[in-house]
């Protein structure tokens, strides 16, 4: 019998002694171990529940972000003006234009003369 074989037998004996001692555990200890296992599994069930809820968080975050982005863009973008509003703004620009006012001041005598001309007066009466 070589040394390795003795070692193998020895290891089998120690293993059997341990297995026997496990099999000999009393009912009260086994019951406590069962309770401990159930507590651990309850933990797993609640962790699973938390996991499912947490998987909704990214989807909710994306939806909320999209909503906020939409509201921000909607608030910041200036409204497209209507035709009437556009005309008023153009008139105002013309009236406030510095160059145009200067031109009016310089050529006012010309416009006065032009109004006195008979051919232009006829045009106005026809219109």
């Amino acid at each position, binding site marked *: 019998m070589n040394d390795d074989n*003795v*070692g193998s*037998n*020895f*290891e089998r*004996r*120690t*293993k059997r*002694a*341990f297995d*026997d*001692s*496990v*099999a*000999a*555990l*009393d009912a009260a*200890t*086994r019951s*406590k*171990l*069962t309770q*401990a*296992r159930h*507590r*651990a*599994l309850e*933990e*797993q*069930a609640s*962790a*699973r529940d938390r*996991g*499912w809820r947490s*998987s*909704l968080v990214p*989807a909710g975050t994306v939806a909320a972000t999209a909503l906020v982005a939409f509201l921000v863009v909607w608030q910041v973008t200036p409204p497209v003006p209507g035709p009437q509003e556009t005309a008023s703004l153009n008139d105002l620009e013309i009236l406030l234009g510095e160059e145009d006012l200067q031109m009016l001041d310089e050529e006012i005598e010309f416009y006065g003369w032009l109004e006195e001309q008979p051919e232009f007066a006829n045009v106005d009466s026809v219109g």
Partner: protein
Amino acid sequence: MACIDRWKSLDVMANAKPRSGEVGLALSIAQREASLETEGALIGALIEAFLREVEARAYRIAVMQIRDRHEALDIVQDAMIRLVRGYANRPREEWAPLFYRILQNRIRDVQRRRAVRSRFVSFFGGTASEEEHDPLAEAPAPRGDNPLEQVTADDAMRALERALAQLPGRQREAFMLRNFEGLDVAATATAMGCTEGSVKTHYSRAVHRLREVLKEHGEEHWNE
């Protein structure tokens, strides 16, 4: 399984006809929920089977190292909870080494705490007699099938425990994991947090030393 049937029916509904965005989203969420439920239930069943298989052995190993049944129960429960909480989604073949690693870490924590407490008590001139090992308290209950055979088995295990108590901690761990738990070298290395070479060395030395100690105590039959 009911969850799988539910998932299949949702899949049929999802592919049955074109649908609006809201209905599609609701179905996707329901499918995802059913899929997670199925996966979770399957993992739950597998991990329960695993814990049922190892709990008594883990408890005996903890008792042998801690010498306190209540504390050993707490340690085993804590190891179960930590495994379930942190590693349930890992591959099944990793559960055993991870579980025993957690268990051994907890056992070492308790041993360190006791050592500190013992030093503290002895510094102030007290005794730590409550920490002493009580062999009768640790003795497993008789099975009742064959009393004489049972007494012999208990004696043998007590002798083995005494011999194990004389080993260095790492050798004792390697022996328990390899011999009692039947973990292979790689799994034992993971459980002990060391290399496979170290496991082989620790285990070989442990076997050698155990045989010597048992022989010294007149336990010749172990080596026959």
